[in-house]
């Protein structure tokens, strides 16, 4: 009678032991490659607010004070004019407005980087436009960028949130 030796069986078991591992690892690899292609990594546009009392002590009357750069983002009006950005009397509109604004702000920042920039954004302006303007001011490397908010008691705007 021939009795099979144990050596043959053990050798075969050892060679097959890696197969399920390789199967699972390959399966997971393929799954995560497929899953990662569908996900876009989000970035962050940081803003540092001034906490506590956010309203300016005085409402700002009529003419804007000197020593501040007011950037007004205007929503489209009824006459068919689209989004516009006004900085110190200069108006930027059209599809190229962000590039022109960025160039202007960079020139301004080279002259006076300590000049506080105040973003006055109209309520109906889309968030994408507001952040594009804020992004242009950050890219110009101003030291302080504020958001103007509507004061709760008056219709005037006051600088509130800071960079």
């Amino acid at each position, binding site marked *: *009678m021939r*009795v099979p*030796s*144990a050596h043959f069986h053990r050798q075969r078991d050892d060679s097959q*032991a*890696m197969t*399920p*591992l390789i199967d*699972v*690892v390959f399966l*997971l690899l393929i799954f*995560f490659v497929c899953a990662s292609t569908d996900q*876009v990594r*989000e*970035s*962050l*546009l*940081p*803003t*540092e*607010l*001034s*906490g*506590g009392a*956010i309203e300016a002590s005085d409402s700002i009357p009529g003419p804007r004070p000197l020593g501040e750069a007011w950037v007004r983002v205007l929503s489209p009006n009824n006459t068919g004019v689209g989004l516009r950005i006004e900085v110190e009397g200069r108006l930027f509109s059209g599809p190229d407005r962000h590039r022109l604004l960025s160039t202007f702000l960079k020139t301004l920042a080279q002259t006076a980087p300590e000049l506080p920039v105040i973003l006055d*954004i*109209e*309520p*109906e*302006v*889309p*968030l*994408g436009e*507001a*952040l*594009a303007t804020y*992004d242009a001011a*950050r*890219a110009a490397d101003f030291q302080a960028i504020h*958001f103007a*908010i509507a004061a709760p008691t008056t219709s005037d705007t006051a600088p*509130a*949130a800071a960079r």
Partner: protein
Amino acid sequence: MRIPIRARRLGVALNLTPLIDIVFLLVIFFLVASHAARTESTEPVELPLASEVDDDQDQVPRRLVVTVTADQVLHVGGRIVTLDQVADLLAEANAEKQDSAYEVRIRGDRRVPFHAVEPLMIACAQAGITRIGYAVLPE
């Protein structure tokens, strides 16, 4: 007849393959779970574009993610909330934050009007939370 005696090793033979399988699965599960918990990007929004972005986002241990969808609805943790509820959350966070930094991340759709987002910034400032950030896509 003489039957050959199988020479057995002493001790227990340990098959490592299932162990490695399970460990791999657990590692990948926790990687995915921690990533999902960090992003909380459940509500699909069309994010604005920006160039001056900060990609080092893991410095803040605690944050509140507020999503503003295109229909101007606020979401926190997958639930629809009101501005008052967000203000309550911010007040609680401010009371508990002590020395650790706390951040509010606003995931706003690029088409949403600014007046839907502005109250969030005011609520953050009033609650004493100064670090806020907008989720954007790099240009």
